[in-house]
């Protein structure tokens, strides 16, 4: 497409808040692997300014916007506090609503995420194919059970958010998280099927109206005022953002109840079972949505640190390239970004990698690493102690 008119509704004061100092560049995963100004936060903001001013965009512009992983590492790095994430979301929403960005098949794909029956049917099909060894191992998918055992609530102290893909593919992780939470004496409630998609991927893709619909539905699944715990950093960031997405008091109250599961545990370290035996050396990958968006990554080290020797990476929390659906649509950049992360991980001699986000976890596994959710690691160590 060429010279397509567009109205980019980003407030001018947000656009000019970037002084183009460039301090974000080394913290941007796509700039790091391409060294292209157009693949940097500073560059993308300059492009938004230009499109905002000229009122037209073309394929070149769309490409530059679409290659952003939305890790928001630039926000942590930005001394001026530029709100890059919301500017990118607004841009993508404008592209999705005003241009042919996001074709019908992509929209259908995102639709499926919140449509439990379709997701289950698709997952069962993958599970079946896995039994016949027809799914390449390099995709890094977990072994998906053909028939899912249901999750069973054990009380009302806290909610545990279940989500879409994670619930379909990695329900055992939820079970492990449940066991760790229960070890502190808490009773866990699971939401009904209205909470089967938080809408994060939709926001990333610019499909905000769909995301708002999913948000309203999700909120209904959590009555009362018990804390809502999330064991997926990406979903947690999204739930915490409902106040902003829906701009309502109810949504803001909801968002305030949301905590990453590690944040909640970090406040109750003394309630967790004692550690016995040796501490394995575990390298922790900070998911962007935990570190740069929720800014809660330290809690993972606090919880994990009780049971293992938790080692952090010396890469300023640079993204691993997963980015929700990003690795599906931009496999090359995603894999280049991942190579960088894998090199950093391999420099540290550790037994295993911990990642508190299912997207990162699967992406790193498909790069050949042994990765588990931090609480799955904790769960294993607690059980041994009993």
């Amino acid at each position: 497409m060429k010279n397509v008119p567009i109205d980019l509704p980003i407030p001018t004061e947000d656009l000019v808040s970037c002084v183009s100092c460039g301090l974000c560049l080394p913290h941007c995963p796509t700039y790091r692997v391409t060294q292209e100004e157009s693949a940097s936060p500073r560059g993308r903001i300059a492009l938004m300014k230009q499109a905002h001013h000229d009122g037209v965009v073309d394929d070149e512009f769309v490409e530059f916007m679409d290659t952003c992983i939305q890790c928001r590492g630039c926000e942590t790095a930005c001394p001026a506090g530029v709100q890059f994430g919301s500017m990118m979301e607004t841009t993508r929403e404008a592209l999705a609503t005003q241009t042919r960005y996001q074709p019908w098949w992509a929209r259908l794909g995102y639709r499926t995420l919140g449509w439990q029956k379709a997701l289950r049917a698709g997952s069962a099909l993958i599970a079946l194919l896995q039994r016949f060894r027809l799914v390449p191992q390099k995709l890094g998918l977990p072994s998906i059970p053909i028939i899912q055992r249901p999750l069973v609530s054990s009380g009302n102290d806290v909610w545990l958010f279940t989500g879409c893909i994670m619930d379909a593919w990695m329900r055992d992780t939820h079970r492990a998280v449940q066991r760790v939470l229960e070890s502190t004496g808490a009773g866990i409630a699971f939401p009904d099927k209205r909470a089967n998609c938080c809408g994060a991927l939709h926001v990333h893709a610019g499909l905000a109206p769909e995301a708002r619909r999913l948000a309203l539905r999700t909120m209904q699944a959590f009555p009362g005022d018990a804390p809502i715990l999330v064991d997926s950093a990406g979903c947690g960031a999204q739930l915490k953002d409902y106040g902003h997405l829906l701009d309502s008091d109810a949504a803001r109250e909801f968002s305030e109840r949301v905590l990453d599961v590690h944040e909640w545990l970090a406040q109750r370290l003394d309630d967790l079972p004692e550690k016995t035996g040796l501490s394995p050396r575990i390298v922790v990958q900070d998911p962007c949505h935990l570190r740069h968006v929720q800014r809660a990554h330290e809690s993972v080290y606090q919880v994990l640190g009780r049971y293992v020797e938790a080692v952090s990476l010396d890469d300023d929390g640079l993204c691993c390239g997963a980015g929700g659906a990003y690795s599906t649509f931009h496999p090359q950049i995603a894999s280049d970004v991942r190579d960088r992360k894998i090199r950093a991980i391999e420099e540290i001699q550790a037994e295993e990698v911990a990642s508190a986000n299912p997207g990162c976890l699967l992406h790193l596994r498909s790069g050949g690493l042994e990765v588990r959710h931090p609480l799955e690691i904790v769960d294993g160590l607690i059980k041994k102690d009993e």
Partner: protein
Amino acid sequence: MVHKSADKKLLSELRSFLGDRARDGDFELGLYAKDGSVLKGDPMIVCLPTSTEEVQQIILACRRYDRPFLARGSGTGLAGGAVPVGDPVVIATAKMNKILDIDIDNRIAWVEPGVLNLDLSRELSPLGFHFAPDPSSQQVCSIGGNVANNSGGPHCLAYGVTSAHVAAIEVVLPDGRVALLGDLTAESPGYDLRGLFIGSEGTMGVATKVAVRLTPNPPEVRTLLLDFADVRDGAAAVSSIIANGLIPAALEMMDQRAIEIVEAFVNAGYPTEADAVLLVELDGLPGGVEHGVEVVRAVANRHQVGSVRVAADDAERALLWKGRKNAFGAVARIKPDYYLHDTVVPRGKLVEVLEKVYQIADAYDLIAVNVFHAGDGNLHPILAYDSEEKGVLERVQAAGRAIVTASIEAGGVLSGEHGIGLEKRDYMGMLFSAHDMATQDLVREAFDPDGFANPLKVLPSGSRCSDSFGQHVPDGAWV
């Protein structure tokens, strides 16, 4: 923005060896119109070479089509040195980012120009070395850019600027020949072309490989934060520390407004109620460092210091430095635009010039923030403003000129480390006579008689006899 249609022949010739790394898309060109300064230009074509040979071919092609060219590193320069004027081809060296060889026996590393300053030091760190120049932008600025600007940084107070840390440079000259300036010996034969090239802001050619010297990491480092209720006491303490025979590794100052802005970003516990803080770093062998800490404490006490905080560990040290090094960008928290100066004054004149800076800012109804390398008298007054405000640009420029004038009247110079670029070239006459500048131009001409390399930079229009690509900074260059 409407671009001139690129010279299609030149573009297709560049594409014949660069492929899609020669660009002329409207959106893409817009990205290379600016660097970290307030100025904006207009590139004609952007090239992203990956080797010396490609840089050479680009320059030869430019010569065939009578096109000037301009090298760009990370685009963080603050004086408009990488702002394209005169419709040049931009040669962005970002993709030339390999560390080619680390030669510990010679204490040298050969790097490509696009290697980022901090990446290099991080790579060297496990071996016990670093690259000493550390501009505030070190996480993103490139070695090529450091060479072009003879960059400094807080630690150049003790270790010296880029020129002292570069042994040799491979350069593609403006006529397309490749030269090696300097060598790995201590006394390279002939005139010091290497020393001349460093700081020439890309007007003598494009650096394609750099041999940097490795500095051993100090066994002991101590970082102190001193706060003062009066900025004058802080400045007096600076002179006094130096006069006591101590050269700290770094000696940085922030005024009250800077402290507030920085603290909002880093939460390092900077005392926001203080009128000024000094960040003092001492490094070396333990005895010398201990002695230094004592001297600093004693001097600080004589100058009514509020408190002396010694960073307990590396993490606290890093946090304090993070605040200092992000100060400029953080200014955007109070106003969307800023204009940063870089004058140097004798240390003894710091207070006098600082007070003038505040008076000037008041007179022009602007906000002045001061974060600077106090140890070497290198002021960085920041004028914060909102370019949407009517008539503000004229006020900012007039205030800038007044600050430069005040600094030079106090016995100072135009630029300590950012360079002259496009921004300050017309101020050169405040420091140099017409004959001084004509001599500088003769020297530049020896490398580039036709003015193809980064036209319209460093020397004011009129003093360059070969300004064939336009005479003045184009109207509206300020953004």
